[in-house]
């Protein structure tokens, strides 16, 4: 394959450049820094909608419907479908595209399936940088979709401006899910398949949970929808808009943006330092020997940081 110039491909609006850059981010290749810094709009952040919910709640169908709706407003939309179930090593089968393939030929839509692949920082580090790339490429909205298992929904919430938690009636997971910390992350509740019996009950359950919790400045609205029939999609987007307006009006948006940037910087330092630490631990006899003698890690850790000093930045990320 000929040597590729991602920057040129990116600037030309070639989707392959974006796709490869996201692969680099997934592999934690530090050189992505140069790409982002070289782009005029490298710091442009799209608006991020997080979608999470149990398997079978119809998230993909809902996302598909939402994409259609956002496209009617001429917004460019990217979907990151993250599968947190794929194992650490070895392969994965990513099947979330199926529900959205009708948008495949729309140049204003980009869909990317991501396996978790055991990223040390979970999904968040890779998908956060992917969001940056998508913004730089010109997408207005990024929909980050993941099954709510393990920590994945918390990671989604950490990146998203607005987090939507999707529930369905009758799955028996209603109250349970709310107890498992979803309350804190949900900005909007969507009760999908709202035409099924039990929808009212599920909505009532959420309402009473909200009533029991602390009084917050933003009370998460509960929206009924039937994604497969295209019902309630407009209402879901309206709730998202209200939440956005709320974030702006209260100054919360700016505060969150700053907090996110700080997180990003801290995570990069951690990632870089960790890589350097591992290298020294695995390949430097002095550090390894010290650790063997001490049988307690503090002094070795201090030595690593002292020795690495100003050289923590990976070469591929240096300017």
């Amino acid at each position, binding site marked *: 394959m000929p040597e590729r110039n991602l920057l040129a491909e990116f600037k030309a609006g070639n989707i392959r450049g974006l796709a490869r850059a996201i692969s680099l981010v997934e*592999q934690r290749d530090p050189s992505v820094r140069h790409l982002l810094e070289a782009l005029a709009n490298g710091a442009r952040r799209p608006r991020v909608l997080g979608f999470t919910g149990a398997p079978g709640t119809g998230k993909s169908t809902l996302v598909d419907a939402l994409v259609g709706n956002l496209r009617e407003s001429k917004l460019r939309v990217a979907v990151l479908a993250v599968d947190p179930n794929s194992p650490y090593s070895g392969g994965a089968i990513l099947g979330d595209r199926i529900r959205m393939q009708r948008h495949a030929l729309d140049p204003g839509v980009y869909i990317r399936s991501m396996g978790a692949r055991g990223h040390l920082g979970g999904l968040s580090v890779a998908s956060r940088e992917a969001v940056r790339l998508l913004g730089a490429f010109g997408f207005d909205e990024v929909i980050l979709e993941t099954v709510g298992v393990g920590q994945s929904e918390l990671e989604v919430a950490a990146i998203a401006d607005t987090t939507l938690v999707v529930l369905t009636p009758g799955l028996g997971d209603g109250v349970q899910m709310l107890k498992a910390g979803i309350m804190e992350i949900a900005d909007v509740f969507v009760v999908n398949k709202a035409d099924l019996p039990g929808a009212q009950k599920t909505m009532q359950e959420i309402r009473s949970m909200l009533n029991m919790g602390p009084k917050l400045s933003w009370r998460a609205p509960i929206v009924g929808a039937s994604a497969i029939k295209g019902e309630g999609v407009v209402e879901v987007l309206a709730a998202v808009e209200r939440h956005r307006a709320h974030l702006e009006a209260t100054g919360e948006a700016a505060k969150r943006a700053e907090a996110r940037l700080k997180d990003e910087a801290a995570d990069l330092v951690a990632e870089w330092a960790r890589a350097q630490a591992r290298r020294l631990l695995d390949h430097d006899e002095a550090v390894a020997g010290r650790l063997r003698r001490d049988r307690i890690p503090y002094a070795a850790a201090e030595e690593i940081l002292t020795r690495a000093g100003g050289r923590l930045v990976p070469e591929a990320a240096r300017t």
Partner: protein
Amino acid sequence: MSELAAAGAQVEEPARPVRIVLAKVGLDGHDRGVKVVARALRDAGFEIIYTGLRQTPQMVVEAALQEDAQVIGLSLHSGAHMTLFPAVVEELRRRRAEDIVVFGGGIVPEDDIVELKKQGVAEIFTPGAPLQSIIDWLRNRFPAR
């Protein structure tokens, strides 16, 4: 490359897996084969993006570009392989993505296999082909880096 760069990229993260878009082109819905292949390739360490049924060549290629896939695997049982398989290769050419490898599976007569290979399809696996032969072929094309 400095030690640090080497460390940054390779020490903790697994190498880039080969990403494969598996698609059913054409109108038939016989997905037994493609599903069995998907599972076997997953177990062999490949990352599979399954795009589902009734994909047009344009949709398949677009998915491969968006997903940064190195390989496209096509499954078809309707007999339209002589039209649709070359159409995928042609679409890749049009999108300047000839580096993406295309292989296919289905009921394809021997003469057609020869012709399809001439037209740029890298390999065809017919019913009864051992899964291991597909895995071996892919590993051979994409040795671990």
